[in-house]
């Protein structure tokens, strides 16, 4: 009996060891830990050392105010929904004195307008009243987005608001929305902290940089098995916040960045920073910035004979980046996170693309597609709730899963989409989008 028990225990240990070895060897995406943000276990803050005293964002945010009791107006000429996004060329303090976000904002506006047009084609609110989009430019100047939200709420009487892209301006907007008690749907700000403020009026339907960073970290450290990473990113808030989870993941895996440098927005010469990085002999250079600067970094890297992997944000996945990077793309070894899978064969997505091309003469990007989805979610919530901001908020909060033109959306306890990020891998001068299964197969 004792002998059998010994054999059993030995076999058990052997099995565990073999399993562990396979797990270590295989290039697998990190398993979700069931914690906030689908954070893989090895990326959980302080997870290697201790349990936190309190973990936030695991239970649904509540709105406990009076708003649900406010009666619906007897008559409105139109049902107004606010839009705020960077649609005009303005110099922005918030983005470091330079504004590159108008192309993204215009796509976002186009997507939102298409959703409004579709709803009005169906007859508008409850089949009777047209929806009207109240369009505001987010010029980012001196926190102007706050005043724009105030105007939308008190002067234009909007029932909900969609916007914006810049992280700082989005934060300003949602704090105002909290006081004014109006739902805000965000479709273009991928800053992880945007949603981590406990505001029960805020929703986001785009996969954020937390998800994209985890995927990029898995790709670099587990798939490529590289460990020497250096960073050169934009000096603005976008660069600072969006790289955060990648930096943390690297640190928690035991491969902290060799160096993290930044460039001021508007820079055209990244060589001084790249010289420093080159001296460190990294295997990967990671960047977070707009398409223009990211392309510049890549070109100058390649010119300097730096043939390392170049990893970046979804803003790189654009025609602008491809054009500006030019010959620097020939060496390949470029990848970026992306918030959805535009290569899937989905009738809804295909139909949207056709409609968008017909109306605007170009293909929709991720900002257009998510704005269409976000606006559709808002309109559906208004249809169910009626004209009451708190009830519209409740309807948005009740959405757990939803299928839009960008695919399946899965909303967590703080109402942000947690559907998996995809990887944009440069192949033959263009980005191919790979699902996580395809990356790690």
């Amino acid at each position, binding site marked *: 009996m004792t002998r059998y028990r010994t054999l059993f225990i030995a076999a058990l240990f052997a099995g565990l060891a073999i399993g562990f070895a396979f797990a270590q060897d295989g290039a697998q995406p990190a398993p979700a830990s069931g914690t*906030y*943000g689908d954070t893989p276990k090895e990326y959980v*803050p*302080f997870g290697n050392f*201790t349990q*936190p*005293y*309190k*973990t*936030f*964002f695991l239970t649904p945010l*509540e*709105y*406990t*105010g*009076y*708003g649900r*009791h406010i009666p619906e107006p007897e008559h409105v000429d139109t049902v107004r929904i606010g839009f705020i996004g960077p649609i005009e060329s303005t110099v922005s303090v918030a983005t470091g004195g330079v504004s590159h976000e108008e192309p993204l904002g215009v796509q976002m506006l186009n997507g939102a307008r298409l959703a409004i047009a579709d709803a009005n084609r169906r007859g508008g609110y409850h089949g009777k009243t047209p929806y009207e989009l109240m369009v505001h430019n987010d010029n980012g100047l*001196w*926190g102007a987005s*706050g*005043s724009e939200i*105030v*105007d939308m709420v*008190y002067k234009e009487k909007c029932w909900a608001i969609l916007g914006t892209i810049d992280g*700082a301006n989005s*934060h*300003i907007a949602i*704090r*105002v929305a909290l*006081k*004014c*008690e109006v739902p805000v749907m965000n479709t273009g700000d991928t800053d*992880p*902290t945007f949603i*981590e*403020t*406990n*505001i029960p009026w805020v929703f986001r339907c785009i996969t954020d940089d937390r998800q994209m960073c985890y995927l990029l970290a898995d790709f670099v450290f587990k798939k490529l098995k590289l460990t020497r990473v250096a960073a050169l990113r934009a000096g603005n808030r976008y660069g600072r916040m969006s790289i955060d989870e990648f930096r943390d993941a690297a640190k928690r895996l035991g491969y902290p960045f060799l160096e993290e440098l930044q460039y001021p927005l508007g820079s055209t010469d990244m060589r001084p920073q790249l010289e420093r990085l080159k001296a460190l002999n990294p295997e990967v250079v990671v960047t977070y910035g707009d398409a223009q600067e990211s392309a510049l970094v890549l070109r100058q890297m390649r010119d300097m004979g730096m043939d390392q992997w170049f990893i970046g944000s979804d803003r790189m996945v654009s025609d602008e980046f491809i054009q500006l990077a030019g010959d620097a793309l020939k060496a390949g070894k470029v990848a970026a996170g992306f918030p959805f899978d535009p290569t899937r064969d989905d009738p809804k997505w295909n139909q949207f693309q056709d409609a968008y091309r017909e109306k605007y003469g170009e293909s929709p990007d991720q900002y257009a597609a998510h704005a269409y989805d976000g606006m559709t979610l808002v309109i559906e919530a208004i249809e169910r709730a009626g004209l009451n901001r708190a009830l519209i908020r409740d309807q948005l909060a009740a959405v757990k899963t939803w299928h839009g033109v960008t695919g399946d959306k899965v909303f967590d306890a703080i109402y942000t989409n947690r559907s998996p990020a995809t990887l944009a891998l440069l192949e033959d001068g263009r980005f191919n989008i790979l699902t996580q299964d395809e990356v790690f197969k």
Partner: protein
Amino acid sequence: MVRRWIIGLISVLAMIPMLNAIGVELKGEPFVYADWQTFYVKDGLPNDHIFSLKADGDRLWAGTEGGLALYEEGRWTSWTEDDGLPWRVVSGIAVSEKTGEVWLGLFGGGVARFSGGRFDHFTQLNSGLVNDVVYGLTILNDDVWIATTAGTSRYNTVTGEWNIYTEKNAPMDEIWCYNIDSCKETNQVYLAVWGGGVLEYDVAADRWTDHHDPDGEMEIDLYRDDGLIHIITTSVSFIDRILWASTYFGLSRYDGRHWRGYMDHDSGLRSNFINFAKGRSATTVYNCTDKGLSALVDFETDTWVSYYRESDEAESWTAKISIGADTVRTQPVELTLPNHFIITCDFLGDDLWIGTGHGLARASGAGYWPGLKTGKTSLALPGREREAQP
């Protein structure tokens, strides 16, 4: 033998609730505000959505979503845009002890000075105000300090000079100033910066001190008392050399050396979502949460009194007395406000005023005592029902 052990074990287990009940004995009796009066538009308010309150001697100013109101000698007087108020939403009020001028923070409308029945309007286009979305203001000596969504402005009422504080000249990780307080004794200004923790500014020394959440993570609080609970701060209140800082993740107390954190699972806080906290002393603070008003009445004994609605259908509110998170008893109070999402509060003498999303209420402080009253022999006050919680 085994049977005796089992019986013994069951006996010990059965005593646990009793031990718990014994463990939550009050060390003294906290004052409970039981007598309340409510005010709405029908009573003279310009709007039922209350944004700010400010006690001014024996008067009370109320900033609402639809205008300004003053309660004086039992009557309300109000001002709206029709009366010259530059913008309808009054989000902050400060009164100059020196001149009696009333300074108004206008949510999206800048700042107004109300003096002699006239409103003077300051905006980011006609003054040094850094942003028109104003969350709060305070007056220290001759300066009006204004917390806006894009930095803080300082206006010297004697020289007319404006100064702006942003990330360029202050340790603001973010510039989103959410509330502000000041103290004459220390000659300091205290800022709650959304995403930037708490900042102290020593006016004489022109020196900033910043306080952040030490774990640096949004989704966790690593250790309870390691520092500020979270960097999403919503208000700061400095009194008796104690800093109280509210967040949407709990409450923090700082005595200059030690931090203490409070959350809804480890204290009498009704909710971690605190819109505003007002310190009454070094040991007492009132917290306006989305689920009622929670007062830490006595820091030393961790004695709390919370005021809230048990349900939407409840006719009146309930007061809950607790030691930490352990309830000692509950009792009904004569408060009928329809919602317990509390936005602001202030003390008018011993009276307590609270502003909500729908209505304003005053609690009579007749017979008020600070902290705990010890030596009481009976807890059988009218309407009180002793209830030991498991």
